């Protein structure tokens, strides 16, 4: 893996390459002319609501679904039409699909045995892999005797032991409870860095994707709406869908006047210089945690200021969530860190303000 870095950039084909891939079920295009490159050693997350085509995309890479049109390449090799067992990828299924009639050892050894690896090597590699996922002590048990988290790690070990060049993960943490899921997120990231192979991770949990992935693709209705590093696409989601799917957003509409957007009530909101189109109507947004809340009689601390009335206050420990009704932009969500004891009860008049740089544009 390390030798790849010595090669000139662009010389190495991407680990996974989809070229105008379409998958239709009857009249419905689950995946619609999707093109995508996933680089070597990336932790790549595909997120989107159910039915957006993310699982279908992953299943086409694994070979469980054939694309209706388009080409799929793995490290430059065309694998379209090849059977799952002819592809150098392995999958961690959402249901784990551990073989209930085989022991944990035999589950992990399954792929090696099918490839004809010598049994001494099988024992060594399975042993090493069970150690990596810290399950050596349960090697002789059957899957059903293990907890959900342990089964999840067996599923991971069973895939990784084959040294796949790409590992596909289909909502692998979906069946775990919240605390275990958080632990496994860190664990998966550690393992990915340790084994250094490409992970393609499908999830509907945007927080999970942001925690683990180097690159996130947000899918909607069979195509990718936005792709990039987590910070980049969070701060600049570019479409209303991405803005509301990835985290929460306050979206508002207005008319462009120079480098200012004039909202319905006449309030003027600034955006990052150069981010706005020249003229016309525009939709902009701001994240709830970027807004500062002050009593109405104070001077705004940030250039973009709106007046409003608190309609709902909920304290959730690390922060307090407000809903504030404004004349210019309807109801806005505001998240305030609980740094001071000042809390605004519903009915209080308040001032909302934020930095122009936190205003993003989601479409004209």
């Amino acid at each position, binding site marked *: 893996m390390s030798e790849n870095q010595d090669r000139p950039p662009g010389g190495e084909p991407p680990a996974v390459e989809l070229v105008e891939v379409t998958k239709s079920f009857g009249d419905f295009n689950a995946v619609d002319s999707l093109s995508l490159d996933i680089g070597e050693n990336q932790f790549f997350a595909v997120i989107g609501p159910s039915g957006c085509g993310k699982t279908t995309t992953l299943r086409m890479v694994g070979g469980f679904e054939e694309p209706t049109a388009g080409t799929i390449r793995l490290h430059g090799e065309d694998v379209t039409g090849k059977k799952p067992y002819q592809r150098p*990828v392995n999958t961690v299924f959402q249901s784990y699909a551990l073989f209930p009639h085989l022991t944990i050892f035999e589950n992990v050894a399954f792929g090696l045995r099918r490839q004809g690896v010598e049994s001494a090597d099988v024992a060594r590699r399975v042993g090493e892999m069970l150690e990596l996922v810290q399950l050596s002590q349960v090697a002789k048990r059957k899957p059903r005797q293990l907890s959900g988290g342990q089964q999840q790690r067996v599923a991971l070990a069973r895939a990784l032991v*084959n040294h796949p060049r790409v590992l596909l993960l289909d909502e692998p943490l979906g069946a775990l409870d919240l605390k275990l899921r958080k632990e496994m997120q860190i664990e998966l990231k550690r393992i990915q860095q340790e084994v250094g192979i490409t992970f393609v991770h499908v999830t509907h949990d945007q927080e999970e994707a942001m925690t683990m992935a180097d690159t996130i693709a947000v899918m909607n209705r069979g195509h990718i709406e936005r792709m990039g590093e987590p910070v980049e696409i969070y701060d600049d989601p570019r479409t209303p869908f991405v803005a509301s799917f990835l985290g929460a957003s306050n979206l508002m509409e207005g008319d462009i006047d120079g480098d200012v957007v004039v909202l319905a009530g006449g309030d003027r909101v600034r955006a990052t210089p150069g981010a706005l189109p020249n003229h016309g109507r525009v939709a902009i947004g701001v994240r709830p945690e970027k807004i500062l809340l002050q009593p109405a009689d104070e001077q705004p601390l940030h250039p973009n200021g709106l007046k409003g009335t608190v309609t709902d206050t909920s304290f959730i420990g690390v922060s307090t969530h407000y809903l504030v009704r404004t004349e210019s932009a309807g109801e806005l969500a505001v998240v305030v860190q609980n740094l001071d004891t000042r809390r605004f009860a519903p009915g209080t008049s308040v001032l909302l303000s934020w930095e122009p740089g936190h205003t993003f544009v989601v479409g004209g």
Partner: protein
Amino acid sequence: MKAKYIYRTLLGLGLVYLFLPVFIVVAFSFNDFQGRRNVSWEGFTLRHWAEPFSEPGLSGAVLNSITIALLSALISTILGTLIALALVRYRFKGRSSTNLLLFLPMATPEVVMGSSLLALFIVGQVGRGYWTILIGHILFNVSFAVVTVRARIVGLDDHYEEAAMDLYANEWQTFRRVTLPMIMPGVVAAYMLAFALSFDDFVITNFTSGSVLTFPVYVYGASRRGVPAQVNVLGTMIFGVMVLATAIFLVLQGRRERSSE
């Protein structure tokens, strides 16, 4: 408390109802009767058990029944398993009509099926005998095998097979290493059911047997002149073997389920 006693009494009566005939068969294998009719208790003897195969024709009939049951159960379980897999796993033209057709042999009265088979064999100029009995038994057993195995496959998540293929098992290895072991309880149950159905089938066998005798056909014929006690002896033996086989099956299944829990 009262409801418990009523429940137990009803259960006891139900069991007596079920097992009284079996008990009579077993008891009369020890009956020291004189003459031809083994119908009233005349004293205890082991003489029938001393020579269970002495009755001419009976042993051959039992042997026919056993081999036909073993073979027809084997063939119909293999066919039934493959048909069940196809019906559950694949969408193909004629799938729903196949489903319907599979129920027909179960729904058709045996007399109708037996006489139709006879007509078919006569028209086709097929001599009746061992092989026509076998064909008839496979015919009605396949439906039961499909239904039994299918129930098991329906409960089987597709992801197991996908996972096997993902782990470099080709279609045959996937079937051999994953699908078959996982549906095995259904396959064994289908085999045992098919064996039992074949072994005691009389109606269809009587139409298709020609001059070949099976155990039920022999007993039917013998009942007119007096059933020899060897019938009770062999009947008891077969009953014992079936009980043993069922018990082994249940124990193994119980162990399998416990070990995978």
